């Protein structure tokens, strides 16, 4: 039941903040913020004292929806979902905070969309019914489309359309795969159902399994995104408003990774094992290619966007390494990337508010004016190049350590990716904060609100870096299951 509540809170908060937003902007902001904090509270509460001994699944909720097709409103929460939800609400709350000053037009509608996206994402992380999954998967696109298309930068429509078409194309293939699975299962057992648990270990002939698996995989690779399906991402991230970029990078990409962990591997273990080398290769290509592109960019947000491509490569690499260490790394990477990249986007947004450009050629020497923002940026840049003591290091190290067991060559290449990461990360610091300050900006350093956001992020990333154990333990059960 509590799971349904999580979704409903967001849903109604979305409507409410829209209605209120017509009258008062602050009102809708507060409503959005409170609803997200409430959810965050609930989730943390769950985390701290979830019913012990219930095994892998802490909570389940199931009612029929379209019995005609064997579709049910089936929600369930395990460690993985829990972590993802915590991340979702955390970043969600932050993205409301960062929009506080940035978004001044159509505030109510903005928060409606923001909360609606988060609602969809929550659903994706919770649902255990494939139809429902597809339902939420599609549902979160439209509001995201609006977030980019209405409050974005210059080329917002192009970016929004691209994002929409790519993800839709992937989604439709997944729909085919879902239905294929549905009928294969029905053919074997005569039970027509979309229920995840029933569909698990459905016997099917390898060829069929491969095609269905590919159907799922493509959808998730597009979302992840993996080369060569990544080209929507830079545009979308660049053009979106800061909150949009944060949600995109921090959460939407994670739905792809989550999908791989939750569906591709458990549903089609054999087929996935067959495709593994290719997938890992894609991951490595992503790491290097993304890094190379990131190095070349001059648009701050675009640069960060490409770093996401590079980082998500690790997720793909680890997910198909088929061993526990790698999976732990993947989960860590999902979370830490959400934090670090989100933070970088926030900083980029804060800079944009101050100097109204994203072109790093026109920046430089900003440390003089903005030492605090500079230090924050330094921390997250270091995180993105995988400095020990910050979360990303743990994640990437575990991924590499695990994938080494699976494939030496690819792991070596991926490790070389760390050097590339160093190159582009340091480039950020050098171009933006160091060097001579030719222009005479006079601008305030981080305001109190921004400081709160940044400090929260810093604390989390350091906590993950020094004491990741709680997270690792939480994802443990689920991972044992996947590995089996």
């Amino acid at each position, binding site marked *: 039941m509590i799971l349904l509540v999580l979704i409903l809170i967001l849903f109604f908060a979305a409507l409410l903040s829209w209605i209120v937003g017509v009258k008062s902007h602050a009102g809708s902001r507060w409503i959005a913020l409170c609803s997200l904090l409430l959810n965050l509270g609930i989730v943390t509460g769950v985390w701290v004292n979830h019913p012990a001994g219930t095994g892998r699944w802490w909570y389940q909720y199931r009612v029929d929806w379209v019995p005609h097709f064997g579709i049910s409103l089936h929600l369930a929460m395990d460690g993985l979902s829990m972590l993802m939800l915590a991340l979702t609400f955390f970043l969600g709350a932050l993205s409301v905070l960062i929009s506080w000053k940035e978004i001044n037009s159509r505030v109510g509608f903005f928060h409606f969309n923001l909360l609606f996206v988060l609602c969809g994402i929550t659903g994706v992380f919770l649902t255990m019914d494939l139809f429902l999954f597809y339902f939420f998967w599609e549902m979160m696109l439209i509001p995201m489309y609006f977030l980019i298309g209405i409050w974005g930068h210059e080329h917002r429509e192009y970016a929004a359309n691209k994002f929409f078409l790519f993800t839709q194309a992937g989604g439709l293939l997944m729909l085919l795969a879902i239905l294929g699975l549905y009928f294969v299962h029905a053919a074997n057992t005569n039970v027509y159902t979309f229920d995840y648990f029933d569909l698990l270990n459905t016997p099917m002939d390898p060829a069929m399994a491969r095609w269905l698996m590919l159907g799922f995989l493509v959808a998730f690779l597009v979302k992840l995104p993996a080369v060569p399906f990544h080209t929507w991402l830079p545009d979308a991230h660049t053009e979106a408003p800061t909150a949009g970029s944060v949600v995109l990078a921090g959460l939407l990409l994670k739905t792809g990774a989550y999908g791989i962990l939750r569906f591709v591997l458990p549903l089609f273990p054999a087929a996935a094992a067959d495709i593994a080398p290719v997938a890992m290769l894609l991951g490595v290509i992503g790491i290097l290619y993304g890094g190379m592109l990131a190095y070349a960019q001059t648009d701050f947000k675009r640069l960060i966007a490409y770093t996401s491509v590079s980082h998500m490569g690790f997720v793909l690499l680890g997910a198909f390494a088929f061993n526990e260490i790698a999976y732990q790394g993947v989960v860590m990477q999902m979370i830490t990337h959400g934090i670090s990249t989100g933070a970088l986007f926030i900083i980029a947004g804060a800079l944009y508010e101050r100097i109204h450009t994203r072109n790093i050629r026109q920046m430089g*020497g900003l440390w003089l004016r903005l030492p605090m923002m500079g230090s924050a940026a330094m921390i997250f840049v270091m995180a993105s190049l995988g400095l*020990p003591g910050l979360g990303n290091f743990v994640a990437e190290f575990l991924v590499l350590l695990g994938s080494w067991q699976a494939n030496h060559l690819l792991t070596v290449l991926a490790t070389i990716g760390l050097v590339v990461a160093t190159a582009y990360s340091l480039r950020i610091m050098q171009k933006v904060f160091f060097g001579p300050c030719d222009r005479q900006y006079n601008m305030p350093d981080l305001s109190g609100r921004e400081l709160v956001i940044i400090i929260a992020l810093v604390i989390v990333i350091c906590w993950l870096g020094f004491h990741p154990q709680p997270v690792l333990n939480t994802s443990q059960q689920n991972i044992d299951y996947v590995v089996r």
Partner: protein
Amino acid sequence: MFPALIPLIPFVSALLLMLGWKRLSRIAVTVIGCGSIGLSAFVAVLIAIQFAAGGEQAIVQHAGNWVEAGGFKTGFDLRMDALSVVFVGVITIVGFLIHVYASGYMHEEPDYARFFACMNLFVGAMLTLVMADNLLLLYFGWEGVGLCSYLLIGFWYKDPANNYAARKAFIVTRVGDTAMAIALFMLFQFTGTLRIPEILQSSTHIWSKGDPVITWIALLLLGGAVGKSAQLPLQTWLPDAMAGPTPVSALIHAATMVTAGVYLIARTHTLFELAPDAQITTAVIGAITLVLAGFSALVQTDIKRVLAYSTVSQIGYMFLALGCGAWSAAVFHFVTHAFFKALLFMAAGAVIVALHHEQDLFKMGGLKKQLKGIYWVFLVGCASLAAIPFVTAGFYSKDQIIWLSLSAAGGHTAFWLAALLGALLTGMYTFRLFFLVFYGDLKTHVHHRPGNSMMIPLYILALLSTIAGFIELPHTLGHVTLFSNWLLPVLPAVSVLHDSVAMEWTSQALSAVLALSGIGVAYAWVVWRPKGMSDFLEMPALLWLRGFWSRGWDFDKLYNILLVYPFVYLSRMNKKDLIDKLYTSLAALMQWCHNVLARTQSGLLRWYILGVVLGAVAILSVLIWRIYI
């Protein structure tokens, strides 16, 4: 007493300084910055005494878990054993002195707090590195010092050149780190752990001598080491790193961080013993590096760059020693080198400040009268670096290496000759520097004399770099082996093959003579016949050669052409992301289809009728085709 305190104190103070930022007064910063290091030095000494008294193998403190996932388990375990004690001692004591010096050197700096924050952070990371009980924690320190070196090289961030130097340093060392990381993966794969003691003692069971796997592992570790210690082929970053403030050069790029590679190899010596090829590689790298760097140091015009190259060369000696299996000798040279190189850097810094941030050797000269104190400490430092027989620490440590490079199990005549050549070069470049600075006629006038906060550390270091040698004397003279005995529980004694006193005498004599003759040449070159020498040096061939050497044998150019330019070029080319073209062209195709079809919607009735008729014809013809053909 908890070993954890030793790194923790600097970390905490660094945190304080960061948070305090501008709000802290200069005094407070100084107190926190230097005091913390002093404190941890004090703690270190206490623990060292406790350890010495206790007499157990090592004091290990488990300060909490770090990562535990699927059979992989590491914690914040700190280890105090003979080797760590040596390193911790040097780091804290020398570090403390340098901090005190820095408080004087940097006192005009506006960003005073940031400087000390980074310095403390560095000390903390370095201590973690040398005290780590598992390789992951070591890696943590390893990267940490890299970060601090980056931050401090680029400390004066307004000048892009500094940032480039900093970036270069970080990236080049990162290349080495990558190799090391892979070594870690392999070690975990085979031993199932990253705890150093476990690895060391299980390694002998797992691998036979010369097993390719262990060779790979050792080589990869070596890769990490050469990266940090600026050895061939990754030595290019160190000279540029001199862009940082002088205390930084003294602490990070002379005394401590750059010797991390030495520590790593010494720490994992068991693995290297299992992999003779890797060990020989180490020796070869050391030998070549020390010679190349020596030549480069000979022709530098920037005072700090001379010292930088000499550092590279001296670390080359240490690697040579490690390669020959003379573990303790290497560590011994590290200790003495830490003393006199820190001394030299800080003295040079004092000179630079005195001449109002003038670093060009040829704008100096005749400072003997002006800066008496500095003159003397500088002399001591140079003497020790050039290994003047009997009185300097440098002599004993280096001489030991030279001798062992011939006589030790892993030794070889070629190594020996290289080492001797190195001794000659050392003498030459050291005293070329010395004479250029203090003799000849005054070129730039002294505007400011260093205060006590800068001089006292110099005196102390001068003292140390003289007496430190006497804790380990060759058995030709005295035969004191306090140091190697101390390290014995960790590092096995070197196995000397042909142990003849006569040969050792000759070796020592030879090295001494070479060193002195080097000094002679330098004297002739700079003081006695500057005119003739310069004429000789102006010869075109030599001119080119000097340029070549001073550019560090053009390694930078090589790497730029081989790696940097291609990468940058490719990424610039591909800025727009070729793959995107694929999709855009797909969209264009759709548009084209639209245009074509839109033309059929002409609005003419006849067209539409024609369409219907064509449809009919198509359907019927399909029928006919299916049925009759």
